[in-house]
């Protein structure tokens, strides 16, 4: 493991750095984490320690170390120093995703929202079920607006990288 100054800069700049520094490794986060209870491979306390020291825990080989987070917000709630752990883990996940390291379901969801304005586009079977229950067949979605906002935040670029690398995989294998 090596210290990554760029990673350290991002963590400290994005967050109120003094809050991260308050971590005295009491382990309440990991002790209460429902995923850590199942596997030592996901350890929120360890992730915070690494983030403070500037060691980037993101790697393709150990995706679980980051994406093991189930986003339950328990750690935030029990932290005695009010450290925004879930926020820090989001930064770690975003950094991983930028390197095409993340679950495929997230990539699919990102693409679905960009293309359709919804994570779950309507399919004919559900439409029929809706009509039979007296619900509107479907709702109009502001697809163009969603696309424009996602382009403004650079999501289209991220998405194109995810798609290309995801397609490459089988050829490489």
């Amino acid at each position: 493991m090596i210290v990554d100054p760029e990673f350290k800069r991002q963590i400290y700049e994005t967050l109120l750095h003094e809050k991260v520094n308050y971590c005295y490794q009491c382990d309440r986060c990991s002790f209460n984490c429902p995923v850590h209870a199942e596997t030592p491979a996901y350890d929120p306390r360890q992730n915070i320690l690494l983030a403070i020291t500037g060691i980037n825990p993101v790697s393709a080989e150990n995706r679980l170390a980051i994406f093991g987070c189930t986003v339950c917000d328990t750690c935030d709630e029990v932290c005695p120093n009010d450290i925004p752990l879930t926020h820090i883990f989001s930064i770690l996940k975003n950094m991983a995703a930028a390197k095409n390291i993340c679950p495929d379901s997230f990539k699919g969801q990102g693409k679905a929202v960009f293309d359709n304005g919804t994570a779950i586009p309507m399919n004919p079977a559900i439409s029929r079920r809706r009509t039979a229950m007296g619900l509107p067949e479907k709702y109009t979605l502001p697809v163009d607006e969603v696309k424009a906002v996602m382009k403004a935040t650079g999501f289209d670029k991220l998405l194109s990288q995810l798609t290309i690398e995801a397609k490459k995989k089988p050829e490489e294998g």
Partner: protein
Amino acid sequence: MEKTLFLGCTIPGRIPFVEKSAKVVCDDLGIKTEVLGGFACCPDPVGINSLDKNTWLALAGRNLCVAEAAGKPVMTLCTGCAMTLKTANHDLKHSHHDKEKVNIALKSVNKEFKGSLDNIKHIAQVLFEEVGVDKIKAAVKKPLKGLKVAVHLGCHFLRPSEVIKFDDPFNPTKIDEIVKATGAEPVNYTEKVLCCGHGVSNENIDIAASMNQKKFKSAKAAGAQAFVVLCPSCYLRFENANRDVKKKFNEDYNFPVLYLTDLLALAMGHGGDEIGIKDHRPSPNKVFEALGIQI
């Protein structure tokens, strides 16, 4: 009572029967709802947020602008939508830096987050705080006597408590009161606040199955016959968990999963056919039949 209804993606697109039960419950209790054409994916606090937090905040900000323009309180059926909209609203109001960044992105669609909205609630919170347990009790025509349910609130219904501001984040009791009004009994089980595992299931289904087994085991020990949930992700996770837990642990739970509004609609005298009970997997019919409750 008038509300802007934020439906999100999963309920209308995958489990529309929940939209139906929510509709009949709102009609019966005098909650007028309107779905706005401008709403899109909230987006959810797990997926899009993991890919790019700034995009998550900007898209949530866009939905908030649509709601601000309508000017009415917002009600969601999904816990994830409620948490995203509440959190984004909170963050954008409290961080000038975030607000500035989001408003630059929103310029592309001629929108601007103003921060004029302060009433965003999940339907369960509306039922408890604004309709009230007494009024719900008065609307019950067919008490679900004998039915024992495990109430699962879902993480984002409770936390971050500083933003959600509703129930105790580790010892929630308010939804139990609504369940009691239907005549059903909410059991006390040790793993009540354990996460459904939806988030981690994207990365590792095996870990989610272990969490689900813990939850199911504790609910069964407390005598629960079904789960009652408030979130479509929890709903789908638990339906699938019956299969995943059986595969990993060879334990058969076969827990039917009901949305809070399903339970209320049935107790308020609506038929199972009307609210799509036949689309639940596994079917809750056996549980009701055993209790002699006609649905």
